[in-house]
């Protein structure tokens, strides 16, 4: 319990630092173009590697997880609101499992 709380504090720190440092000290600093491009790609690279293969084991069965993932991807392709994507996928998995 105590160690879990220390983990939360550590996570709070590594979340706050990247948010804080540029706001306080970056007004003048210029990053090299390669670093800028790298940082611009990080969100997409991290999302892709988080999604696959983690999504396949995110629900009790492989098939319901695959189904939920496909529902999410279809809704995302339709460019609906993010909340609809999340709710649709949860609902899809729920329906898939109860049938």
């Amino acid at each position, binding site marked *: 319990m105590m160690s879990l709380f220390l983990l939360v504090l550590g996570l709070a720190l590594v979340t706050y630092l*990247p948010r804080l440092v540029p706001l306080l000290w970056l007004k003048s600093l210029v990053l090299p173009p390669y670093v*800028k491009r*790298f940082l611009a790609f990080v969100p997409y*690279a991290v999302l892709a*590697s*988080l999604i696959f293969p*983690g999504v396949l084991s995110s629900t009790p069965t492989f098939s319901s997880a695959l189904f939920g993932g496909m529902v999410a991807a279809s809704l995302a392709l339709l460019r609906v609101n993010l909340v609809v994507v*999340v709710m649709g996928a949860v609902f899809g998995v729920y329906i898939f499992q109860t049938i």
Partner: protein
Amino acid sequence: MVTSIQSTPSSSPRPTFRAGLRAGIPVAIGYIPIAIAFGLLAQSFHLPNVITLSMSFLIFAGASQFITVQLLMTGSMYWEIILTTFILNSRHFLMSASLSQRIESTSRKLLAAIAFGVTDETFSIASTRKEASSGMFVLGLNTVAFLAWNVGTWIGVFLAFGLPSSLQASMGIALYAMFIGLLVPSLTTRPVFVVASLAVSIQAMLQWWITPFFPISDGIRIIIATVLAAGIGALVFKEEEAT
């Protein structure tokens, strides 16, 4: 700088803060269900309530909180979870850097308070609104988002008792649905598509070729795939195509 004509030097902080609160309402509405899903997911893994609630209060980063719960349950080491979170959040570095050029306020206390609330969603609002040159406006925007995130987490944690376990189990997909919802619309640009495909391929190779012989944890695989894919992308796409 046409903007300076309208804004009086200290455009009264309180109405500006309130305008920020209003601008954040769409974000708040979006956060509540996702925060509820987070609370439910943490509950279904039997994470202590005080830990779940303090995560939303102290960390305030959706993807990091979801992935932390996930990694805890697959038995990852704490340092791996912290490193994964750091890599995951390095994207906020860019957003704060961009905000630092926009916000005209120079109070370090105010800037430090704003920094805490920089998220993908609050940033996307702040970067499309002219009023964001005022620090108080951005603070208002971040505050309403933070409140919604915490209220949602409380609802999720204390609602979980009443929900059937089958619905709780379905919540596992929520995090990935959120990731998919964030990534898929961007795949129409070629560099993004290439980088995302690279990351997936590297993940697949690590998972099925390397891990059977040298066990690598989920956290480390995410870090390797992210750094390699983004690094190769930055080398290959020299022009400013990377958005």
